[in-house]
């Protein structure tokens, strides 16, 4: 199988020709709720790092396109051996790091080996688990050998955690990132902003229109609203307060961007904690929840109801919301059936995002209607990770699983919601080894149905990508297949 991105190449050639006309056409300031803790995407889970740097400063062998598909990045083409164990990547020529060094195969080997090393601090080390070795072919080719076939390798290599870094910059990467992207790092005023500027002589890939980008960190939703309203920021790709979007929509100065994300927002349930280990109780919870009220109340209407752990925009999605239609009466009778006619009490531990905090209040009220008393406690992420995710000390929690194609987590019995179904685990093993698209779809349908009918978790809605931007900005990503703010194609309209 061979894939060459002629189209992309052509597009970049075209862009090259018009870039002169777009010169000095502008600066933008991008609002973000969270500030990166540091600037090394390969050693932290913080999405904020990718939001600033992915595709802008750092590039990987492959990359996500705005529709979620995988396209060539620093590798302009690749070949895969028939047994699916050997990948040979042909690298782009003439690529330079921002410090002036030439990019070649050794950088790829360095970056991938660093990510999978024993003492690696890569937050997604599992992505590289199946890689047996990475070797240079020649100056511009890399050979990756797998220990077993993995249909997701190209997808995995597109993650921000797999970007190519230069060995010389490793010591200072957290403060002063050096990548190969169309923008280079200028300054970071901690607590306030990060500034990027266009890489001079950028000749590999799509040409960019912007000269200067300022990411400004505004954690407070009110402040974010005010900043957009007063046009202090030009775009807020992930606007933290959906309640304000209607106002922006009504204002001709702004455009509201509503797209899809990979975030399945679920009412995670501790499948090992009585009485939640009883499927009838989980089903009762599922039927007690009114998704529309949650989407309206917590998200101000933004979000797509889901009935299983799968993104609705994915072609393999099955609409299973019918399995858990809002039916409090049924809920009550299910509880009675489970011997809990008088209801029961459980905890609901909520991480900071407003979907969780607001959704939690609504769900608590809805569960109270059927006799389930829920004690809310608001946690910070660190506490949530410790208590809920690692400690498994919870009854219910609300969280949005933003990793793409992550139905596989249901095959991990030690995962925090502790769903342990050998049948499902076998299904996923089969899926991982399967390469045929139609067969994969069938298996995925089966998996979605199984977790939906086991009522593993309460499936609430797919998080919408809700952003707001100046009406004159064009080329922004509407969907969010990964956490990124790709500014490559962004420009000001005349």
């Amino acid at each position, binding site marked *: 199988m061979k894939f060459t991105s002629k189209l992309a190449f052509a597009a970049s050639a075209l862009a090259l020709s018009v870039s002169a006309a777009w010169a000095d056409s502008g600066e933008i300031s991008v609002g973000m709720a969270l500030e990166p803790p540091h600037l090394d995407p390969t050693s932290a889970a913080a999405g904020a790092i990718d939001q600033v740097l992915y595709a802008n400063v750092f590039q990987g062998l492959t990359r996500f396109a705005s529709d979620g598909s995988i396209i060539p990045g620093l590798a302009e083409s690749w070949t895969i051996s028939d047994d699916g164990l050997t990948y040979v990547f042909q690298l782009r020529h003439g690529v330079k790091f921002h410090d002036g060094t030439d990019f070649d195969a050794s950088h790829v080997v360095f970056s991938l080996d660093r990510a999978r090393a024993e003492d690696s601090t890569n937050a997604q080390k599992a992505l590289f688990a199946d890689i047996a070795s990475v070797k240079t072919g020649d100056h511009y080719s890399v050979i990756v050998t797998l220990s077993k076939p993995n249909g997701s390798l190209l997808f995995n290599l597109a993650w921000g955690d797999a970007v190519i870094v230069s060995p010389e910059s490793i010591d200072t990467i957290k403060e002063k990132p050096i990548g190969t992207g169309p923008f280079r790092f200028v300054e970071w005023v901690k607590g306030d902003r990060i500034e990027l500027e266009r890489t001079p002589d950028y000749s590999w890939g799509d040409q960019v229109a912007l000269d200067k980008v300022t990411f400004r960190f505004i954690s407070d939703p009110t402040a974010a609203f005010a900043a957009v*309203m007063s046009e202090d920021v030009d775009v807020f790709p992930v606007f933290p307060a959906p*309640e*304000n979007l*209607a106002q922006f929509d009504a204002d001709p100065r702004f455009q509201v961007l509503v797209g899809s994300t990979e975030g399945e927002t679920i009412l995670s349930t501790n499948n090992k904690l009585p009485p939640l280990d009883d499927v009838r109780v989980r089903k009762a919870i599922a039927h007690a929840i009114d998704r529309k009220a949650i989407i*309206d*109340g917590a998200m101000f209407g933004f979000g797509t109801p889901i009935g299983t752990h799968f993104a609705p925009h994915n072609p393999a999605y099955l609409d299973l919301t019918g399995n858990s239609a809002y039916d409090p009466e049924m809920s009550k009778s299910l509880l009675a059936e489970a011997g809990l006619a008088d209801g029961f009490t459980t905890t609901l531990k909520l991480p900071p995002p407003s979907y969780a905090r607001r959704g939690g209040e609504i769900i608590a*009220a809805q569960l109270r*209607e059927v006799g389930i008393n829920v004690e809310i*406690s608001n946690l910070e992420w660190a506490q949530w990770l410790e208590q809920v995710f690692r400690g498994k000390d919870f009854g219910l929690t609300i969280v949005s699983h933003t990793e793409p194609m992550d139905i596989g987590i249901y095959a991990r019995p030690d995962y925090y919601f502790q769903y342990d179904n050998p049948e499902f685990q076998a299904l996923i093993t089969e899926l991982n080894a399967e390469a045929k698209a139609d067969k994969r779809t069938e298996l995925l349908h089966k998996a979605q149905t199984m977790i939906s009918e086991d009522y593993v978790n309460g499936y609430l809605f797919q998080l919408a990508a809700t952003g707001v931007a100046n009406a004159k900005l064009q080329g922004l990503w509407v969907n969010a297949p990964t956490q990124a703010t790709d500014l490559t194609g962004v420009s000001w309209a005349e």
Partner: protein
Amino acid sequence: MSLTTAPPRKPSLLRTITSSLNLTLGLFIIVVFFGGALISLVWTPFDVASLDIPNKLKAPGLPHLMGTDHFGRDVFSMILVGARTSIAVAVVAVGIGMGLGVPLGLAAAVRPGSFMDELIMRGNDLVFAFPALLIAIMITAVFGPGAVNAILAIGIFNIPVFARLSRGAALSLWTRDFVLSARVAGKGAVRISYEHILPNILNLLIVQGTIQFSLGILAEAGLSYVGLGAQPPIPSWGRMLAESQTMISFAPHLALFPGLAIVFTVLGLNLMGDGLRDILDPKIRRER
């Protein structure tokens, strides 16, 4: 012919209260809010626990006097119940401050300059060195947010306030002759503190208590505002403000009413404190 001076007349309490504008106004406001809080125990116009999302963000009018919030809850009812939270947190916190601070202050005053005095006063300085909000943040970071921890944080900060106040007042009382008389009568320090010192600083404590109470309400609002106070679904003014903040541009009533509730309660308490001081404090001075 009498050469003795006439004993001073003691004005009737009722007359003093009505003649003090501050006190009357303060009492009126406080009665309204405490009354509201009490009534909310048995009745509120709407149930604050049940959500009515289709009716969300209604402007003030009928039947929702102060409108509804983003979950369709009745703001007026939430303010009534929120008064309860504010009052409860502030009362208990001031109680902690008084309950611990006053005995500490009295103990320190028994022998000024003693090791005990130094220990207590340096301890006080230490607590004072931590700005109140920092104490709150540290406590909630350790034990998690919640009304109890907010109470603890505000309470801890109140301890040195009362310790200092009661020590200062007790020090001057210890030099008074009636304390000497009690010592001549063989009474010990604990008994004197309880029998002679405490009743004489009570007025001062009441006045300060009122002021700390109002500060407690402000502090509770501040903590709830940053999410460290009472947790949902318990309504709290500070959290109502925090939640309303993103909607202030299209639903200003959500920010207006809880804010006014805080302002009025604090104002009422401060006015009452001033009024009480006018009545209670000069008497102490006159007695000297």
